[in-house]
């Protein structure tokens, strides 16, 4: 009897391990698949140099903003306000760029952090679910952004676009990614965030200051987007009312495509951010390259999104899905 149990146990373990590995490799597999598909469909145009740099140019802002939201989602929250934060912080950076670029960047980060703090306060102190709080702030700051740009777009100092150099942007982006990845992997940040996402009460009883951590996470998300705004400004040069529109949904789709479990917790991986953003941008550009109508592009994106989520979602038996 015990031998049989041990063998069955071994199989169970193998099954489990496979699943874990499956979860990590699946998004990577998805990325490769999508590159291959589009390479074939576009006669390899998509893997040409200028196509790649076009794709990359869209990656920077998205991936940095995703890093912040990744942390929010790891603790089980949702942040739908990032688009509006990008808009406001881009305006701040543009406006202050006339004095000093460095000052502008710092101001952008700080203003993003402030909005993040508002999110944090209403969520942590007033105990409102994060998705409601961030929908409200999204709306609020979207309106503010529109108001500020009512008469004319906010232009940054013209010299700022000289910074729009690929290597510069790559460097900045990598710097952010590396720093956050290291923090997540090699400090108690990772284990704490995952514990809060997996079991907040128990995390609190283990000595993690859950309220403070959640508050800081929202601030971090805002600050990171504030930094991403800098990369946005050097690309576009001036900010209109629609700056950052729909960024939050793009972030959500990118992270989901990257395999991030919607409820966060211990199964999140930092690679979700990078792979997800790449899949999203390749998909976006691939569809444009195929010369498809924008409505058709959207249809394809919607379908792929639903399919990918169906395949990758972490379903535990008996779990209630809302």
């Amino acid at each position: 009897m015990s031998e049989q149990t041990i063998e069955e146990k071994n199989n169970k373990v193998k099954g489990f391990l496979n699943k874990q590995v499956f979860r990590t490799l699946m998004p990577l597999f998805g990325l490769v698949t999508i590159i291959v598909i589009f390479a074939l469909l576009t006669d390899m145009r998509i893997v040409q140099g200028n196509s790649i740099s076009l794709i990359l140019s869209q990656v920077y802002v998205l991936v940095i903003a995703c890093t912040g939201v990744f942390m929010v989602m790891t603790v089980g929250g949702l942040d739908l306000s990032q688009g509006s934060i990008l808009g406001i912080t881009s305006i701040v950076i543009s406006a202050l760029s006339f004095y000093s670029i460095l000052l502008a960047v710092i101001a952008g980060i700080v203003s993003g952090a402030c909005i993040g703090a508002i999110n944090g306060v209403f969520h942590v102190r007033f105990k409102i679910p994060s998705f409601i709080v961030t929908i409200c702030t999204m709306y609020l700051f979207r309106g503010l952004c529109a108001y500020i740009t009512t008469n004319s777009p906010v232009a940054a100092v013209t010299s700022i676009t000289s910074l729009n150099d690929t290597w510069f942007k790559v460097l900045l982006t990598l710097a952010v990614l590396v720093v956050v990845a290291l923090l997540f992997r090699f400090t108690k940040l990772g284990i704490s965030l995952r514990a809060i996402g997996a079991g907040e009460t128990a995390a609190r009883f283990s000595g993690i200051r859950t309220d403070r951590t959640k508050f800081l996470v929202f601030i971090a998300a805002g600050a990171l987007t504030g930094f991403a705004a800098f990369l946005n400004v050097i690309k576009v040069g001036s900010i209109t009312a629609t700056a950052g529109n729909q960024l939050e949904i793009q972030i959500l789709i990118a992270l989901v495509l990257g395999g991030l479990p919607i409820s966060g917790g211990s199964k999140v991986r930092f690679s979700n951010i990078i792979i997800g953003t790449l899949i999203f941008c390749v998909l976006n550009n691939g569809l444009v390259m195929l010369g498809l109508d924008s409505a058709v592009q959207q249809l394809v994106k919607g379908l792929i999104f639903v399919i990918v989520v169906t395949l990758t979602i972490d379903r535990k038996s008996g779990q209630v899905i809302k």
Partner: protein
Amino acid sequence: MGETVLYAENINKSFGITRAVKNVSLSFEKGEIRGLIGENGSGKSTFVSMLCGILPIDAGRFVLDQEELKIRNQVEANRRGVSIIVQEIGTLSGLTVAENIFLGNESRFVKFGIKNTTAMNREASKLLKKYGFNHINASTMIDHYNFEDRKLIEIVKATYFDPKIVVIDETTTALSQFGREELYKHIKRIKEEGNTVIFISHDLSEVIEYTDTISVLRDGDFIDTVKSSEVNEDDLKRLMVGRELGSHYYRTDYGQPMSDEVVLSVENVSVPDELDDISFELHKGEILGFGGLSECGMHELGKAIFAASYDRSGKVSLADGTEIKSIKNAIRHNIAYASKDRDNESLVCNDTIRDNICLPSVDDLAERKILLARKMNKFAKKYADKISVKMTGIDQYVSDLSGGNKQKVVLARWLGKDSDIIVLDSPTRGIDVKVKADIYALMSDLKSRGKSIIMISEEIQELLGMSDRIIIMKNGKISGELMRDPKLCEEDLIAKMV
């Protein structure tokens, strides 16, 4: 009596590789009150869950009144005359009392799709009066009633249609004396009406007193059915465990002098509605037991010491005067806490064993803020092995472990932190006998190493067996203090509890 109303034929149920119920065959007679007991993991909850439609049967069948019981959920079970009063909350917030009572059975009040609320409320009121629960109003939202009243409403919900079989699953532990009396009254009534009660409880004296016969399950197997009037608690324990339980289970030393050194001092601690001006001192190397009825406040006291209570007033301080005001501080000053609510408070179930063992110690494990995976792995493995956690590896998710092993993980994390003051709340609740013995041995070992333990427990034998000193609580206050003595017995403790 004498006529069989229900029999179970070769019932089987497995969860993955675990065989929870193995070929259990039982029969029940009309008008019988049958106790069903067994250690955790014995299969009794799984067995009744299948009877009541909560879980599907893998193999075997139930036959009720000569007709096979083929049901898919509780409501179908109710229609065949089988119902259950569950251990946790069985009523739904956001609905009225009447809606809760008739949930799933509204059809008789529905005509052309329209629900006749007035008629439903009237029926519910009639029932509540019949049961003598005059303080409960049928049309009020159930949220306005406390846990006990909601349980009373559940009694109405489970028995108003004169079911042939009523299962009462560990309901009494959460009720006050008044609630229990009400329950016993209804159990008697059901018997008098010729119907059958299956009564599950861990309280062996209660089972012996209120049942006609008792069936014992162990490890998924059916052991025996005995007459309640012919057995005592030790007999039952022997059947449940399968071996003689010697007193070497607990500590065997008496008369050891207690150190004078105070390690923790609790002064005038109060929590609104739970604790009222509690003061005591904990000595080095002492095992201080806390006992009392369920709602006496001792569980809340454990949380208060760990600074996990909301609105706590008063002072909890260490020997050197440091006040403990937050959980993080408590942990940093080497206080540990193992909650009664293991799955929600002591363990992050959806996380690995490694993460759980390392969490309280992350600050210590980090060298200049850097936390290396290798270090964490070594740490977790060391303490998991020290306490013999049965696992497939430290990467295994805690949710896959059995109750006993979960508790071992909880203890492993505090061993790893090398805490000096350990607050254990119901440390052996829901744990099988073998692991229980391991835990008691661990407690003795910690004591001998100079650690101090506060043990909060509802098991009187455990308190008597393990504590150097026992403080009894009643209604949020301390009502008595007793010293370790071989002549100390249950009655002495109970006298102070009620």
